[in-house]
């Protein structure tokens, strides 16, 4: 049986929507990624530290902790600073104003609402499994 592009790669998805987490898990697992999910900000950092994923898909608007604070903690921690991050948000202006800054730090953005193919393409590129 042919292996998908995600074989051997782990992704942590942080989002406060159970429906979106379920969908992301379904889509990414179908591509053979090993997917771990965090339903809120608290606990996400611990999950990332223990999992050491190849990619983090992080929603910025979370009810308990700011996604920016999670991203900031990831970038200050030498154990996680080099993990690529895909930031998801509907705040187009906010994301655009940070585009250069984020790109320099190895962070890509996914503006909501997004097409499934856009998510999968960005994941493949960031995780280095597009070839």
């Amino acid at each position, binding site marked *: 049986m042919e292996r998908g592009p995600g074989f051997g790669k782990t992704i942590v998805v942080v989002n406060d929507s159970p429906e979106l987490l379920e969908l992301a898990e379904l889509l990414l697992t179908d591509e053979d990624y090993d997917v771990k999910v965090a339903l809120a900000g608290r606990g996400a*950092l611990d999950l990332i530290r223990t999992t050491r994923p190849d990619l983090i898909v992080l929603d910025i608007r979370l009810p308990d*902790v*700011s996604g*920016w*604070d999670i*991203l*900031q*903690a990831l*970038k*200050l*921690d030498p154990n996680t*600073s080099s993990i690529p991050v895909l930031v998801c948000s509907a*705040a187009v*202006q*906010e994301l655009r*104003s*940070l585009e250069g*800054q*984020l790109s320099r*730090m190895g*962070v890509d953005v996914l503006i909501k609402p997004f097409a499934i193919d856009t998510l999968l393409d960005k994941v493949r590129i960031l995780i280095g499994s597009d070839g």
Partner: protein
Amino acid sequence: MADVNQILIVEDNDDLRTLLRDVLVDAGFEVVAVANGAEALEIVRHSRPSAIVLDLMMPVMDGPSFLRERRRTPALASVPVLVLTAHPFHHRVLDGLSPTAVLRKPYDVDELVAAVQALCDGETGRGQVC
């Protein structure tokens, strides 16, 4: 031996507070870290740090309230303050509060250390000056 610069970190997020402290200690600063503006005021009653690294959104006493108190306190008014914020409209929030510099999240370790060092050196050219 040169004096070590003492930095007061004011950040309510436990993870960030610990990481900020570790980064600045590794960079050679002496660091005291507290969780809100009220605790920071208590610290500066007894000692005068070289610079303050301040989060904006905090419980008990947030960043803007601390900056207002700083302006009313002569001993504190001259201590440079670096505000760390993800707020896209921080200029509006900080209007009239005169922090020495602003660093917008997300920033990397080098940017943070350079901005703090610049404050200690009496420069305001690094980070985004208000």
